[in-house]
């Protein structure tokens, strides 16, 4: 982390960048927040550890409008989102100085809480320099431990790899954290009957509180004005109506990001109700892979997206009926 801070100071000092976009230490052991730093002395609050899960790519849409370059810290998976935003002309590559930061898997405080660990005072083992594979957690109810892997975000278990897809320089090492196939869960859903599938999603989506965190955090949801925010649209973005509204919102969103979603996992990370929203997107990704050939959104900035590119080999629309 010190290397990152030093580099940030240099870049600010020599005028390469006007600001640094990273994370600021929180007031609990696990709650750093995305933050801008404009002066070297502000970097005393800079932090980069296992709890810096937030994908900062989307903040670059606004930062691209500011004067001067922004040094932005991107983890390997975040760079797919950044590439996709370049492709969609939503960020200005020239306004970003991308420092690709190392990643050893990001932590999910909810997973730690799920293990019954509460009253957390101190967490050891979340720094990038920590080699131990166990978190030592000091709580007001006694000392606890938790395997690092058991506290990782879902997306880290299906990590896309240690490579950054776009960067100006790299700082820090990454670990291989993948221990599952990202389509395993989708494949399981595919074996369900339509009734079982409906029941599964109904149960999950019934928890939705229409906070729109999934949409607002999503780098693929970059419409200047979302249709759900329109006052002229009959469907409100905030009405919580279990019978229909939530399902429509999530299904429309999944369709809208299909082929553009990089599977960054932010939607599931931010959902206050723990809805596995990534499953919708992964189903689309899996289908696209099967019907149009393997495609990873954000892996590059030049390839044509399968759903916006016509070829003679494309699947016929009747495939929908055939597949059921």
């Amino acid at each position, binding site marked *: 982390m010190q290397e990152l801070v030093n580099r940030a100071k240099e870049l600010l000092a020599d005028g390469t960048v006007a600001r640094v976009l990273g994370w600021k230490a*929180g007031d609990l052991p696990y709650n750093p927040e*995305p933050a801008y730093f404009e002066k070297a002395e502000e970097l005393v609050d800079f932090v980069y550890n296992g709890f810096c899960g937030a994908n900062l790519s989307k903040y670059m849409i606004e930062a691209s409008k500011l004067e001067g370059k922004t040094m932005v810290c991107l983890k390997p998976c975040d760079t797919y989102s950044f590439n996709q935003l370049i492709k969609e002309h939503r960020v200005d590559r020239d306004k970003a100085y991308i420092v690709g930061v190392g990643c050893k898997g990001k932590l999910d405080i909810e997973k730690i809480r799920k293990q019954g660990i509460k009253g957390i005072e101190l967490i050891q083992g979340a720094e990038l320099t920590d080699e131990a594979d166990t978190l030592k957690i000091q709580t007001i109810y006694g000392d606890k431990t938790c395997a690092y892997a058991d506290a990782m975000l879902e997306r880290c278990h299906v990590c896309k790899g240690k490579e950054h897809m776009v960067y100006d320089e790299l700082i820090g090492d990454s670990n291989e954290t993948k221990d599952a196939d990202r389509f395993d869960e989708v494949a399981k859903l595919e074996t369900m009957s339509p009734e079982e599938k409906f029941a599964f999603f109904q149960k999950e989506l019934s928890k939705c509180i*229409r906070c729109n965190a999934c949409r607002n955090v999503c780098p693929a949801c970059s419409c200047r004005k979302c249709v759900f925010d329109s006052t002229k649209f009959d469907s409100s973005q905030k*009405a*919580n109506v279990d019978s229909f509204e939530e399902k429509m919102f999530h299904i429309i969103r999944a369709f809208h990001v299909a082929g553009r979603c990089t599977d960054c996992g932010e939607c599931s990370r931010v959902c*206050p109700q723990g809805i596995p929203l990534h499953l919708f997107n992964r189903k689309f990704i899996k289908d696209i892979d099967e019907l149009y050939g393997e495609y990873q959104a954000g892996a590059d900035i030049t390839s044509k997206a399968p759903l916006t590119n016509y070829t003679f080999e494309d699947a016929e629309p009747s495939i929908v009926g055939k597949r059921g």
Partner: protein
Amino acid sequence: MYKIAKENLSALFRLIAETRELYLPVRTAGQTNYAAWSEDAEVDIDTLKTVKSAKDAFFPQSEGLYTVKKEGKKISVEPEALKEQDFVVFGMKACDVKGLEVLDKVFLSEPVDTFYAARRDHGTVVAMACHEPEETCFCKVFGVDAANPASDVTVWTVGEDLYWKALTEKGEALTEAVKGLLTSADDAAVEAEKETIHKILENLPYMNLSLEGWNGDALSEKFDSPIWEELYKSCLACGTCTFVCPTCQCYDIKDYSAGDKVSRYRCWDSCMYSDFTMMAHGNNRTSQMQRFRQRFMHKLVYYPANNDGMYSCVGCGRCVEKCPQALNIVKVIKAFQNQGGEK
């Protein structure tokens, strides 16, 4: 004081549900929220904080107000019925109970909100002392005693027993209805539990948060502070903090048109949303900084200004736990504290 063994709680819930609707923390797809009790509901009274507060029981996130129907040339207006059925909300914590006090001051003052008032009339709150408060809690800062919720009935969990004490007439009535399952008990175990809870509270990191400078008179000083420009920047403008909050009370009124009829409903609004307070004048808060500021000014300045100094935050800490980007009211209060001297 009475007590009931935890293993008899299902019988208790069944008995309550015979004569009243019963809402309590239920686990669905991995998360605990307030829901109606049923035989197969997975009741979870061990989780300290439900994701949403119990606010929905009195002020639902969405509720119909009236429906206008058109038949030929005849137009009829059918108001939504007020709550007529008695109900019990079981398991609310002291912070959420205090949250009701905040809502009461808004909805029960003139003009009275009849939908809310009917639910308050028919609702009985069985509050639960917090057995193991967590690091995100800061209720004490707002004068809430997690060990002593002020409600209709208060219950304490001690070992394998649940101690039960009625505090109001409604509470007495409910106690009478379930008396067959309760046995008399003395106060000793509960007093010890209260002491234990108080000791834990002393050690929580947020409990000594200072609210100095936050009051109804602080309007212009706080409103014009340059600190907001720094604080709001990583805010996603989602509604998580407002929708998990036990005291956020802003709502919007909307129409849903279904051809031959129009339903007018209200739903919680969020100051974080771009259409917040958007009305015909079309001149609402235009930037996220303004909307972000509104949330904290409302809780710590505007509300106290209108309610004899009472804050409209109860320190439940849900926003601390749930904000996707780890912003929250505690950080806001601290930011003003730290920078107050310099600016």
